[in-house]
């Protein structure tokens, strides 16, 4: 370094230290702006579009492997699968007919009660492209984006239950935050007792925690948790988790309850994205300042 500076044959521009300071300040500024204000979403979109082909290229070998695997499925396997599906189909038809009858009956009853109709949800199939690199984030990227009319806030599930929600949308990609993410909360209801609660991700792969439940709450191991739908984001009645462990220590105000997600949060390749808005009446104006602040806070937690 020294002799290039002393001789000055070549103009190398500013010194490394000056560059470090410049770029560090720039990064810190970006960090601050991104963490506080989220102004940079459009820039992120443009860059994500540029990066997209490289990402597809990186996952190409895996895609090819799966493709080859599917291509080489044996005939016996296909026949067996077909038989199984056929049986399943026959069983399902019977149940579906019952369901249709029940739906019609339910619609009539609801009309009688004057309750708002629950809207139908349409589903879109999406494939997981890759998993976020950060160990502390539970996020996935799927291959449907704003080109397929995906919007942030839509719910992602598999055939068993909730997986998470779409938190960021790019043109051909969208980012899904899983229910196991540390900052994620889902309002739930215990199916057996109807008790409402909120289940939080623990940041661990297969663990959720049910917080703020009193020690004497009516909850047992093996209880199923379904979405309560009172947040307006998650549709009601979809399975979320099952209680695996309860620790009731009278020394603490709340019981320590652990649950495991029902859906295959970590091992799914194909996911369903629910679309279809729920029509909710506008939020009533809160009476006092304190109440309003509280409402805002809880709302922010629902939509990380």
């Amino acid at each position, binding site marked *: 370094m020294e002799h290039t500076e002393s001789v000055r044959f070549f103009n190398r521009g500013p010194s490394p230290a000056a560059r470090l300071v410049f770029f560090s300040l720039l990064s810190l500024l970006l960090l601050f702006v*991104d963490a506080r204000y989220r102004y940079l979403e459009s820039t992120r979109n443009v860059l*994500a579009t540029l990066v997209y082909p490289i990402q597809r290229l990186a996952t190409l070998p895996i895609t090819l492997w799966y493709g080859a695997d599917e291509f080489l499925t044996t005939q016996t396997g296909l026949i067996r699968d077909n038989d199984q599906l056929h049986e399943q189909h026959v069983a399902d038809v019977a149940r579906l007919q019952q369901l249709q009858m029940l739906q019609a009956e339910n619609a009539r009853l609801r009309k009688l009660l004057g309750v708002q109709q629950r809207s139908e949800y349409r589903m879109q199939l999406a494939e997981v492209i890759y998993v976020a*690199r*950060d160990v502390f984030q539970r996020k996935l990227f799927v291959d449907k984006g704003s080109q397929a009319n995906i919007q942030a806030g839509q719910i992602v599930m598999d055939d068993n239950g909730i997986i998470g929600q779409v938190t960021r949308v790019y043109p051909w990609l969208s980012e899904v935050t899983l229910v196991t993410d540390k900052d994620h909360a889902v309002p739930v209801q215990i199916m057996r007792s109807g008790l409402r609660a909120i289940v939080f991700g623990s940041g661990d792969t297969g663990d959720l925690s049910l917080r703020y439940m009193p020690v004497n709450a009516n909850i047992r191991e093996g209880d199923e948790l379904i979405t309560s739908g009172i947040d307006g984001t998650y549709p009601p009645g979809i399975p979320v988790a099952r209680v695996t462990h309860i620790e009731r220590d009278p020394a603490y105000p709340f019981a320590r309850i652990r649950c495991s997600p029902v859906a295959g949060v970590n091992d799914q390749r194909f996911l369903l994205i629910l679309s279809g808005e729920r029509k909710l009446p506008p939020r009533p104006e809160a009476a006092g300042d304190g109440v309003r602040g509280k409402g805002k806070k809880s709302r922010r937690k629902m939509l990380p």
Partner: protein
Amino acid sequence: MSTVFPKDREFLLPASPLFIGLSLLAALMLDWLPWSGLWLTLRPDFVALVLLYWCTHKPYRVGIGIAWAMGILSDVADASLFGQHALAYAVLAFGGIVLHRRVQMFDLRQQTMQIFPLMLACYAVYAAVHWQLHGYIAWEYFSGSVTSTLLWAPLTLLLQALRRPHVEDEL
């Protein structure tokens, strides 16, 4: 290897901009493979390694600016906060440029010992950002710096070997 090329000449091997670009692209693709579970915790940061390689071997070609740009691309692909990887890679590139003469004098084993603190600094930036956001220090981040450092020697050998044929054409 060093019989054909004396050690002081290893660093004089030419490197075309195309080769530098391709190596960085390959590193990005390795980083974006779907790692999960324990592998995700132990995953080495290939982009950081390749950047460090070029910063120590060609400090006037690949500098803090390029490292910063690669960091921004990593941030986008990772959905992490804008500037997190950029800051880490800028610090890493600065360390690489400051130490480049020392690294050039050492053999691979000694280089590895010099690289380790730089990698630690790089991962310390992630941990610091995480600490600022979430309020606690995540020590798991640092396991990646160990695997990255262990990969320094194989990666250097590979890149040197890939650069060699260009010399034979010119000689």
